[in-house]
Each structure stands twice: as C-alpha cells, then as structure tokens.
C-alpha cells in the first residue's frame, strides 16, 4: 500500500482484515480506503471520482459555531425589519422577508407559502441551530448533548433544502421586474439578508462532515 503525501486515506485491499472504524468508503463511488492520520491543512480525495473524503482545518468547530450564531442573529433581524418597499403615485407598500414567504397564504396556495417560508427562513435557521447544538459541547471538550447524532444527521439531510442564496437571486430578478412600475426602497433587512448568504456559504465551507462524525463517535465511546 503506497501512501500518497496529500492523502489521508490509503487504498484498502480486499484481503485486509476488517477492523471497525478504520475503513471508509467513498459515498459517491464506493471505493474503499483505510484512514491514516492527516496533518493540518491536508485533505483526502477519492482516487477514482475525486470526491473529498476528509479535510482538516484547525479549530474549525469554533469558527463554524461563530458563523452559525451569526446566521441565527442575521436571520432573525432579516425577518423582523422591513426588506423592500415600493412606491407609486404616493402609495407606498413595504414588505418583510416573512411577507414574501406568506405571499401565497390566501386560499389554495397556503401549502406553497409554508414551503417558501421553510426554504428561505426556517430551514437555514434550523440548520444553524442544529450545528450549534451538535458542536458547542465538543468545541469545549465535553461530551455531546443528547440527540447530537440524529441532530447532525438531520442537519446534513436538510442541506439541499436551504435556499437563502437562491432567494437573493430571486430578489434581484424581482427588482428588475418592478423597476419600471415603481420606485424601490431598500430596508435594513435587505442588507442583513445579503450578508446572511455570505455567512451561510462560509459556514458550510468550513464544516467537514467526516471530522464531526469522528468527533461524535469518539466522544460517544469515552
């Protein structure tokens, strides 16, 4: 078995004796690897399909927690404060992010309203809260709080359904559409939401799933 410098995994052999916790398989193509310790800043990629299996980042947990708290605060602010306003011929209407989510609330489109509220507000805030719950005790070297494992699994499953960044593009398109019709004003929540998207992207970028699972596993057994 050769060991490649930048890899945290070695090819596993079919004849290798199975030992729990030391083998991982690429979730995308099922290639099997043996885990070897990684130095800081290194990452392990699947040789076949290129999926990143492990990447280490120093004190990543604390950074992720800080970003997740930022997400929660910004999201609350972005929902409460006025988001955008339009005025035509002396008439003005302002709307918050929550109003946008509830735009379909009347009549048969109530379900869509719930879905939009979930995709742009509830799921991003829930994911951040779950990450805070899972990582905080471990960042301080304590045992995970009860239910941390299903909580993290749930947070990972929700990842594709968190659509705040897509909402921002939707806002840009909507602004172009009404630009002819009315004068637009930007509320503070508009800027909160723009910042929110950057923070969410950073948070997801800093978090490595394998490291979190490994940490949850070790804490569980000790």
């Amino acid at each position, binding site marked *: 078995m050769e060991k490649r410098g930048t890899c945290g995994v070695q*090819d*596993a*052999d*079919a004849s*290798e004796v*199975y030992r729990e*916790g030391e*083998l*991982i*398989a*690429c*979730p*995308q*193509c*099922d*290639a*099997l690897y043996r885990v070897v310790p990684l130095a800081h800043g290194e990452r392990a990629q699947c*040789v*076949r*399909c*290129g999926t990143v299996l492990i990447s280490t980042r120093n004190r990543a947990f604390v950074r992720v927690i800080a970003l997740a708290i930022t997400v929660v605060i910004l999201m609350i602010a972005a929902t409460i404060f006025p988001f*955008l306003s*339009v005025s*035509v011929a002396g*008439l*003005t*209407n302002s*709307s918050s992010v929550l*109003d*946008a*989510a509830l*735009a*379909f609330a009347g009549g*048969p*489109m109530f*379900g*869509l309203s719930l*879905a*939009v509220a979930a*995709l742009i507000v509830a799921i991003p805030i829930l994911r951040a809260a779950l990450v805070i719950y899972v990582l905080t005790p471990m960042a301080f070297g304590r045992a995970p709080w009860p239910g941390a*494992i*299903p909580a993290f*699994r749930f947070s990972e499953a929700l990842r*594709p*359904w968190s*659509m705040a960044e*897509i909402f921002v*593009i*939707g806002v840009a*398109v*909507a602004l*172009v*559409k*009404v630009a002819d*019709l*009315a004068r637009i004003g930007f509320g503070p929540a508009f800027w909160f939401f723009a910042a929110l998207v950057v923070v969410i992207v950073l948070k997801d970028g800093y978090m490595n799933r*394998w490291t979190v*699972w490994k940490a*949850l*596993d070790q804490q569980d057994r000790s």
Partner: protein
Amino acid sequence: MDGMESAGSTRQIVTARDSGLVACTRCSLVWPADKQRCARCGSALSSRDMASMARVWAWLAIGVICYIPANLFPMLITSTLFSKSQSTIVGGAIDLIHHGAVGVAIIIIVASVLIPIGKFVAVAYLALSLNHHVKMSAHGRHKLYEYVEFIGRWSMIDVFVVAILSSLVQLSSVAAINPGPAAITFALSVIFTMLAAQSFDPRLIWDAEEDSHT
C-alpha cells in the same frame, strides 16, 4: 488491469462491496455487509439501493407532469388601474426582453426552462445508462450527476420572484401583483425532480463501469 486511468491511477479500485462490507453514505464509515443501520450516525445502510431506481422514475415522472401546467397556466397576475394581465413563465421572460432587461430574461429562461428540462433528460439518461451501453464514461456520468444535484435547486428562483413581487406590489387599485396557479405546480416540479436526483444511487454508475471491464 482496470480502466480507471483518468484519475491518475492505474491501480485496481477495491470497493466496499467487493470486500463484503457496506458503507454508510451519510458518514462514510464501513460495516460488515449484513449490518442494517450505521452504529455511528444511525443512517440505514444498503450496499446498493436497487429500489432506488423505482423511486427515481416515480419522482421524475411526477416532476415532468407538474412541469406541464406550470408552463400553460399564468405564473403572475398583474393588475393596474386600467388593465389586468397574466403572464406565464416564458411570457414573463419575453416581457422582460421587451423592456430591455435581456440579462434577467436569460436568468429566468435558464432557471425555469433550460435547467428543469435539462434535468429531466439528464436524470433519465443516467437511469437508462445503468442498463444500456452508452458512450459517456463513468467519470462523465458522475460529473453529470454532480451538476444535476448542484444546479437543480436553482430552478426555485422563479417561485421566489413571484413570492417577492406578490408581497411587495400591493398598492390597492393602482398596481397589484398576485401569484397564478403555475407558481405552485412549478414549485412542486422543482421539488419532485430534486427528490428524483437525491434518490439516484451514484454508486450504480461505477458498478456498471466495473462490470464492463471484467
């Protein structure tokens, strides 16, 4: 010798299944093949999810069905002092071009027409490629799968546009924008095709590749 040269490797890849093991697709830990549930993260384990293809086709079919009324019915209903107009997805994009906003019209066409249709074709192609001989390599198809998973969510743009416009432009009789029935069928179509892509087990792509070399 195997045929996996292009990742800079000519070595034989050993899969978890070859070794009598099953991998957790959530946290990537491996277990003996008869294990039902990952003891680390609690996800259900299955070496290859054969029932997944039935789910892929079912979600894809209902996604395509929802996409049809999404294009026939109005997405936006605009009423001003003097007139009331309705626009479909494509109609709205054409209006934007008439107003000179070509770039935004392109975003809408890409997000609401090209991406959904491309996704229908891509998912169907990936599903069919497992049983039929296709030209595209496993690497190519894996890349295609990654694109589909990454880009599918972005089709939601138009639903959000409708949501923002309908909440913002409510100026009593002067101007009001309300959502049309296409908003809900379009949103459902995007959600169902996302579920179709998530149901697909990409490991099957690589299995077919292996079989053709042995």
